[in-house]
């Protein structure tokens, strides 16, 4: 084995794009990237969407997804330039020397085959292990990765195990042939935060115990700080900064890296509750038609004028359902909602226009929240027409003001949503809400589809607007960093119930209930050794009990 396991020099990657109505043309997505990886070491590749990080990861296996082609540079694995070996050489490499863990294990497993067969397939077909040895190895890996019933889980089909478990099985699949290098492509991004920490710990331990090297690709710097020895920060297919993890996290040189490190450190001082509640949710219980269990049971929360209530929970906690109940899309089976001093009609069609105007909503996916056939001007102008009867110059003037407020110029009036960036789309959605001059805006995961820096910008904008417009936010999110940044009070939801509720300072201070403790301690922090600290403290706790 040579000193460097993976040596990448001047890697250039291109793709052919087919823009509709134009001639197909080639673009470059990675512009000459170089790095080295020693055996047993972990390199984190980090960047926002479009940075080219996954593309670089796959290039280590000589693979281009879709129309992606490696157009220049050299990739050496164990001293051999894999780009010169032809497809036969690549097949000998893939699944034997280098293996891959995909972001969505649920899609990456063949639904028609048992897990064991898929986990051992590469090891057997490359002749690394006999069938029985490979299966023994797989069972050992299942056990090491903390999967339940490691002896028999291989007999199941992919749809029969949970998402977090499947991600571990995928890791076992990658480790089974005893590779020299594993490419982890956002392996925990699709998981809930409390599941993520366990999978992350399992992956880290497996990497350490098997002595394998890894490329760890993610958009979350806090996550990569826990597992990698070195970090490469990428932006738009270029290297921004490349160094060891300690240096990147604690002494970043580049401005962009510094921005990534300090992201989500917005400080928001909590306002004390006034005696003027805008929204009171009273004893709300709700279930969906045709089901026999309550998605929400006995919810009681309150939101004061000009303040923000963050509703936080993982998928399935019922937090989005609460928004549907408040907006009237799902009338509750029990309980009532007080809004601005009167009781809201439970179902949407019977609500007076004035209530609809005062209660607005912003969605997670800004690009499907706007009609693609309407211009920004139409989108923002419609509430002005509908609620205030504004027409002509008066309306145009107000649209311009709103565009100023969301820090976009009036040059955007005639643009279509498809022509805007992700952050701009979300800003237009915010302007559409503001046009109605609402008392309350429900924000449903409004930043979770955005890259961290863009998300920060949106949060800052929302806070500024709150000061100017004195509007209240009901902020639904799974992300605790966002909660810290924006909330005045917090409701933690778990399995359809509010398990903890109060002012931010109280909710985020001990003593905690079990779930809140688990949730809070699971959020990755931008700190070296955080993962070990959490895991060992959890072990001590469970030993103590």
């Amino acid at each position, binding site marked *: 084995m040579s000193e460097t396991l993976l040596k990448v020099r001047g890697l250039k990657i291109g793709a052919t794009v087919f823009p509709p109505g134009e001639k197909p043309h080639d673009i470059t997505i990675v512009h000459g990237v170089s790095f080295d990886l020693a055996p047993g070491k972990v390199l984190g590749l980090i960047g926002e969407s479009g940075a080219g990080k996954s593309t670089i990861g796959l290039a280590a296996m000589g693979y281009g997804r879709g129309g992606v082609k490696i157009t220049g540079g050299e990739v050496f694995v164990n001293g051999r330039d894999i780009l010169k070996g032809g497809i036969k050489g690549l097949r000998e490499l893939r699944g034997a020397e280098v293996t891959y863990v995909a972001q969505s294990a649920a899609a990456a497993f063949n639904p028609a*085959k048992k897990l064991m067969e898929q986990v051992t397939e590469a090891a057997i077909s490359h002749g690394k292990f006999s069938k029985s040895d490979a299966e023994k190895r797989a069972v050992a890996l299942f056990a090491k990765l903390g999967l339940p019933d490691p002896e028999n889980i291989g007999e199941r089909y992919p749809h029969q195990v949970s998402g977090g478990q499947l991600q571990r099985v995928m890791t076992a699949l990658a480790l089974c042939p005893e590779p020299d290098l594993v490419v982890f492509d956002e392996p925990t991004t699709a998981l809930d935060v409390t599941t993520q920490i366990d999978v992350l710990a399992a992956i880290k331990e497996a990497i350490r115990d098997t002595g394998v090297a890894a490329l760890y690709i993610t958009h979350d710097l806090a996550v990569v700080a826990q597992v990698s020895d070195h970090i490469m920060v990428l932006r738009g297919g270029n290297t921004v900064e490349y160094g060891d993890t300690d240096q990147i996290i604690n002494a970043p040189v580049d401005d962009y890296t510094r921005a990534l490190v300090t992201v989500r450190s917005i400080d928001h001082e909590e306002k004390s509750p006034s005696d003027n509640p805008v929204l009171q949710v009273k004893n709300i219980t709700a279930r969906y038609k045709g089901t026999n269990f309550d998605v929400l049971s006995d919810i009681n929360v309150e939101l004061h004028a000009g303040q923000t209530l963050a509703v936080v929970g993982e998928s399935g906690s019922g937090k989005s359902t609460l928004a549907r109940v408040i907006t009237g899309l799902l009338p509750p089976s029990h309980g009532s909602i007080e809004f601005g001093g009167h009781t809201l009609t439970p179902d949407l069609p019977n609500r007076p226009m004035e209530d609809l105007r005062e209660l607005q909503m912003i969605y997670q996916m800004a690009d499907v929240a706007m009609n693609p056939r309407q211009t920004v001007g139409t989108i923002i102008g419609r509430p002005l027409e509908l609620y205030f009867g504004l027409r002509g110059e008066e309306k145009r003037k107000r649209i311009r003001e709103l565009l100023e407020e969301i820090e976009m110029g009036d040059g955007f009036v005639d643009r279509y949503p498809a022509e805007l960036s992700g952050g701009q789309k979300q800003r237009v959605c915010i302007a559409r809400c503001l046009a109605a001059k609402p008392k309350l805006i429900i924000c449903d995961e409004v930043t979770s589809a955005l890259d961290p820096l863009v998300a920060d910008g949106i949060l800052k904008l929302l806070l500024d607007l709150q000061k100017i417009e004195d509007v209240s936010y009901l902020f639904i999110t799974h992300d605790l960093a966002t909660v810290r940044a924006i909330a005045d009070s917090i409701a933690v939801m778990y399995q359809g119930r509010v398990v903890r509720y109060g002012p931010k300072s109280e909710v985020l201070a001990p003593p905690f209930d079990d779930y809140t403790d688990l949730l809070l301690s699971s959020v990755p922090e931008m700190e070296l050794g955080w993962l070990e600290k959490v895991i060992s403290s959890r072990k001590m706790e469970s030993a103590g009990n």
Partner: protein
Amino acid sequence: MHPVLTLVAQRLALGILLLFAASALIFVGTQILPGDVAQSILGQSATPESLANLRKELGLNEPALSRYFSWLGNALQGDLGTALTNGRDIAESLGSRLGNTMFLAGTAAVISVPLAIFLGLLAVRYKDRWPDKLISAVTLTSISIPEFLIGYVLMYFISVKLGWFSSVAMINDGMSFFEKLNAIALPVMVLVMVVLAHMMRMTRAAILNVMQSAYIETAELKGLSGFQVIAKHAFPNAISPIVNVVMLNLAYLVVGVVVVEVVFVYPGMGQYLVDHVSKRDVPVVQACGLIFAAVYIGLNMLADIISILANPRLRHPK
């Protein structure tokens, strides 16, 4: 009971229900339309006596509902009534014709199904290269021309100009199997061309859909050979959509057969149906309509059941 069996049973029950509803619809289509059936059968010049006679013969004086149930009851026992035009028993005349039709459609299916799957695979293998483009051009042309015209084009060039096969497809019981095959060569060719186009296109789409799945990428990143990827990972997941494609096209074949039989004067059910539609022989039309609908519904049901059985999520529930 295993959940898959429940689903299959549900689908079977739905098929039977659909068949009953279809029979009602066919009955309604012929009986309770505006205007008088007897009048439209005999034409404007009919005498009042002959109209009254026909009404009686058709049982038109009975209420429609009881006529429907007695018709359905008889049909279930294999009694399809007698033809108005020649007074023959319909079930008897249909017997051998149904056999002939099945022979024609069956031969076309035996040739077209493997060919379509093979060509579909070829189109996928050479996606966006000339074999794929050629296949899709031929497909586009053949779905743009009605079946009967393809029939005449083949007849003109192959049978008349080249003098290869006979331009009419007469068969009788005295012929040997190979003589029969030779006689139906042209109509089979037409049917194959028509369903082949659809089947190929749909097979291609089905396989491409599977090939774009993330688990195919996983298999490729395991360093498996192209053949292993297709045989072990793509094929097991492509069976269900392909079977579905095949079934849908067989159902389509059943309809195509009607027209092709007329073109080649083939003594099958399609020709029998068309003949009697122009003669306004309602009982025959109903009987044929019912049989065609039953085959069509049956094949569609089979397609659904096979895809239920092939779905691993349903076969191995949580």
